[in-house]
């Protein structure tokens, strides 16, 4: 009986342990060791921090690094601002069937691959695309308008891609807020904005933080959207990692880039948790 239970536990834990060790821990250790290796000659390596000093001293790398972080934060904030009213409507105002339909509508775009979704935006925004055509037809534009390949187009793509990951935690937390608590707020003299500030947002905070963390990480690690919708000035950090590994074949520097990204995202998530007074257990549990 005892032995049987033990065997069961081991069998249940095996996939988790395999996943953790094979896909997370071992590659990261290897990546870390790789990032500490510097190439001094053909097939000659030394251990040192040269790759990291390269990143810190090369302005392009640092600018891209900071830009990626800022743009990801901006994408997260925009996603939150758009998703919050949507989630509030779904969780608190829509009833019955309308509610499921609305929720489904948030989900529908995710039935197609990210590539197709992003390509959908290209069809809309490109020079010969739908919106450009409409503007010309309406006489608002003299010639074709190019709306692709800039930061705004990229931001639209990032927000669109992340929306669901913000809506789901927000709907869940807002759903758990008793309607009577909101009514009590009104009854005791609260106005709409003050109830939002003092009752709804504090209650939804775990959902806001967990949604923001997920969206931020997804944006930071996104490769496809910046590549397809972003312009030549919209270099994303993941593109640099890609070019080091695939184009330049400089795995050492690529690995160092990867580690910088990991440190960056961990730092920002930690800072956000500290600022909002939330803990990882509370937001993810």
């Amino acid at each position, binding site marked *: 009986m005892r032995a049987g239970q033990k065997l069961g536990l081991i069998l249940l834990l095996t996939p988790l342990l395999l996943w953790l060790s094979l896909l997370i821990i071992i590659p990261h250790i290897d990546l870390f060791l790789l990032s500490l290796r510097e190439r001094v000659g053909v097939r000659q390596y030394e251990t040192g921090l040269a790759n990291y000093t390269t990143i810190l001293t090369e302005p392009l790398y640092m600018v891209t690094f900071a830009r990626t972080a800022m743009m990801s934060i901006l994408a997260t904030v925009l996603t939150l601002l758009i998703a919050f009213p949507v989630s509030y409507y779904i969780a608190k105002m829509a009833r019955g069937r309308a509610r499921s339909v609305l929720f489904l509508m948030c989900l529908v775009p995710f039935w197609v691959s990210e590539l197709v979704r992003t390509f959908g935006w290209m069809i809309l925004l490109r020079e010969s695309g739908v919106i450009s055509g409409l503007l010309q037809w309406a006489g608002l534009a003299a010639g074709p308008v190019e709306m692709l390949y800039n930061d705004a187009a990229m931001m639209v793509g990032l927000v669109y891609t992340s929306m669901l990951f913000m809506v789901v935690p927000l709907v869940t937390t807002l759903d758990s807020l008793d309607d009577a*608590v909101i009514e009590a707020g009104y*009854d*005791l*003299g*609260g106005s709409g904005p*003050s109830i939002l500030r003092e*009752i709804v947002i504090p209650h939804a905070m775990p959902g806001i933080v967990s949604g923001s963390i997920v969206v931020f990480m997804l944006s930071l690690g996104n490769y496809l959207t910046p590549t397809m919708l972003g312009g030549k000035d919209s270099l994303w950090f993941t593109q640099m990692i890609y070019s080091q590994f695939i184009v330049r074949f400089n795995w050492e520097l690529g690995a160092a880039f990867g580690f910088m990204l990991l440190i960056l995202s961990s730092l920002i998530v930690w800072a956000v948790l500290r600022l909002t007074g939330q803990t990882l257990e509370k937001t993810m549990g």
Partner: protein
Amino acid sequence: MTTPMPDLECDALTKRFGSATAVDNVSFTVPAGSFFSILGPSGCGKTTIMRMIAGFLEPSSGDIRIKGRSVLDVPPNKRPVNMVFQHLALFPMMNIADNIGYGLRRKGMAKAEIARKVDEALDRIGLPGIGARQVDELSGGQKQRVAIARCMVLEPDVLLLDEPLGALDLKLREHMKVELKALQAAFDTTFVYITHDQSEALVMSDRIAVMNAGRFEQMGTARDLYYRPQTAFVAGFVGDANRWQGRVTRAEGEALEVKTDGGLILRAISPGRKLPVGDRAEVFVRPEAIRLAEDSAQLSHFDTQISGHVATILFNGAASRVIVMDATGAEIEVALPQSGEFAHLTRGAGVHIGWSGDQGNAFAVARP
């Protein structure tokens, strides 16, 4: 000016949801400083009335006046009415002091003034010094009192209470009934209380309205409702009652003789209601109005006397009952006195029961 201005007046209040009428032409006034209850089964429309007074629902027609002024176009956050919600709806994201101070903050009162008022309110409800605690650290009864204090610091003209004792266990509920009544007296505010629990309404209220299917069946003091129910619904809903259906066989003014469908001959009264001979009638007799005796001679002064045997004894301390089965097989519930004389009563024992005719309330049976 003959009478002082009532705190709350509802005039021909009606609320329709689509084709269903939840509240049907209800009018009542609540004098200042009194405890008014609306008692009714769930779904009778009492919550709808309360939500209309609080301002969360708009009446389909009719008027609500508070201290003589119509509040129909006043939004809920501006009405001089506050509500204690069924599940209290304390703000879990705030501590107790912030919960109680919420309404004062919204009024833009100075911080020091708020702190003073909150402390005062906590003293009033007998929980001084708990301001810094979180909501979930409090017991059910304490939360109850905080929910009332949260409203009372705003000094509303009317406090609405929506079955606030429903979530408490029995012992605490009994205790809170007394406490609520005391709090009402201490704050000297008009309370409007809705409940489906008759004992809550009977114990606390100055006046009670019994509501059924969107209408008020009867309005009066607890004693009025208990002793002089005006409708069959009130007789059946307030207190327990044995009920029989039958036909009126004799009528002398208000006094009647009714032969039940089971063959039992009963005496009853129908004050203020005409019940001619031959009409179908329903008779209600309370178990506690029936005398139990081992010797029929003790019951000689009662005009309804029945002999039978004990079918079941339902022992429940002070509320113990005996089910007596008579010769026709009818079962009659009788209160079992706890004075000791029936301590040895056993199942199957022969007993005599009797009651005076004016304890039986007869109502005409509505024809379908």
